[in-house]
């Protein structure tokens, strides 16, 4: 219908109530910032889970008496399996050197003899292999004579997984909570803004304006506010993100084993459009009771 006039009136409204909308946008930005932070958490936790939880790794510790041919044969068998991506053999010496390098008490342990550490085959399994498959594989490998023990690290990964999914659940719950809050705050703010203009609405309705004529500029203003707030929140977040990266990236990278990720472009777009939508819907809803004249 007559969107041009609605635009004109929305602009007039924004200009007249500049102060009001400024404060509204500032409060909304805080809410959106919370939402964006929660999203950021989720994104990084998800990436972390992918990186850590999915590294399907098997260690096949070789018996002390395993001959080189036995080991070579085992390798051939393993490499033929469809799930296995890579097999790497680690000798006792290598294992010892690696252990000492990783340990914080390295120097004290330098006297450890190499034969304390068993030789092993380190196997990379294709990502996405179900856990049961790994279990059956490890059982079958255990029956080989040259194999002393198979370590699937399943208990470690189970713990990590449960930790990560707990974190993800927390972040998700937070995101949901904050979304609800954003909706409420948007609605409230626009309801307050509308409440100041009840007289305008009343006059327009008494002059024969249809509900949609009255509603349209408010909906536009609401959408504008919502997207502006989301935009501001993203701006703030990216600034904070850059500062954080500058100052604490090494530490975080060391802790997480990966660089911090920023929100994906899709998530950012979603925030902007979600903000506009929430603003428009909140505004339309909050208008209802003022339209009865």
């Amino acid at each position: 219908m007559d969107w041009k006039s609605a635009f004109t009136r929305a602009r007039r409204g924004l200009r007249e109530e500049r102060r009001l909308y400024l404060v509204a946008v500032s409060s909304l930005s805080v809410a959106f910032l919370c939402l964006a932070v929660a999203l950021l958490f989720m994104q990084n936790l998800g990436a972390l889970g992918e990186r850590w939880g999915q590294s399907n790794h098997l260690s096949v510790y070789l018996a002390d008496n395993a001959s080189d041919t036995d080991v070579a044969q085992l390798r051939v068998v393993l490499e033929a399996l469809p799930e296995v991506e890579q097999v790497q053999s680690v000798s006792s010496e290598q294992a010892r050197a690696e252990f000492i390098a990783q340990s914080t008490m390295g120097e004290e342990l330098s006297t450890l003899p190499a034969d304390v550490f068993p030789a092993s085959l380190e196997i990379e399994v294709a990502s996405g292999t179900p856990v049961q498959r790994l279990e059956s594989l490890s059982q079958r490998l255990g029956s080989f004579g040259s194999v002393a023990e198979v370590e699937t690290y399943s208990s470690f990964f189970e713990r990590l997984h449960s930790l990560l999914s707990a974190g993800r659940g927390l972040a998700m719950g937070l995101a949901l909570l904050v979304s609800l809050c954003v909706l409420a705050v948007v609605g409230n703010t626009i309801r307050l803004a509308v409440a100041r203009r009840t007289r305008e609405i009343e006059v327009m309705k008494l002059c024969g304006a249809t509900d949609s004529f009255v509603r349209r500029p408010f909906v536009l203003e609401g959408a504008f506010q919502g997207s502006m707030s989301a935009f501001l929140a993203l701006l703030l977040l990216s600034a904070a993100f850059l500062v954080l990266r500058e100052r604490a990236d090494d530490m975080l990278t060391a802790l997480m084993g990966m660089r911090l990720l920023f929100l994906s472009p899709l998530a950012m777009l979603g925030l902007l459009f979600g903000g506009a939508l929430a603003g428009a819907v909140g505004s339309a809803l909050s208008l209802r009771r003022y339209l009865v004249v």
Partner: protein
Amino acid sequence: MASGTDSGAPVVRPFPFFRAGVRTSPDAGTRPILELKGVSKYFQRDTPTLRGVDLTVQRGEFVFVTGASGAGKSTLLSLIYRKHTVDDGHIFFCGKDIARLTSRSIPFLRRNLGVVFQDFKVISHWTVFENVAVALEILAMPRRLVRARVAEALERVGLSGRGGETTENLSGGEQQRVAVARAIVTEPALILADEPTGNLDSHLAIDILTLFEEINETGTTVLFATHDHSLIAKRDHRLVSIEDGRAVEARRGLSSWPGSGLHALVG
């Protein structure tokens, strides 16, 4: 108000009665523009403000509506522009029952009415121009035409050249004239003027009355609620008084003026 200047014959209104697609009865042209039949309004259960008002207004009539303070003049008008709904009875506007309008049709009823509200209902932080123009913007009239017609309306109420001022800063009488301008700018079929001269001095009151009469001569029906007896006395129009919730024809002559019962206050 170009139509006002070129002929005294009834004019065709520029926008449809009621909602697009809703046809008025075929004999709408010959029927009275407004018919109230047994209209009652109860704000409190036991003391009705209006009880069984019967009133027929023909196309092109000019009717004074009077009555004591609190008699129900404003209430009667508000029933016509559907701010309130009747509790009993029917109001026919161009043959359509207003009480039966859906809420989606109400705007299309109001576009055929020009209402001067007793409390003006001007937006104080808008300019004079914006306050008058809003009635035309609602009709989606092009910007250029809006400017021309608003300027014309402001001139008719004696406010030409003051369109840019903030309405808040106007005097009481000037604000009232803005309200009058907004009511007449759309060239409605029926004008409901609720005390449109309450804040005007007697000269200006007669000017505004004359303005309404001029508009009336182009075929517009006017209901003019007032308690200014000196104004009523000056003109020879039909006079309806609201007494005890009923409409009483009180054809001119203030000698036959019905007492309001409020004299007792003076003691």
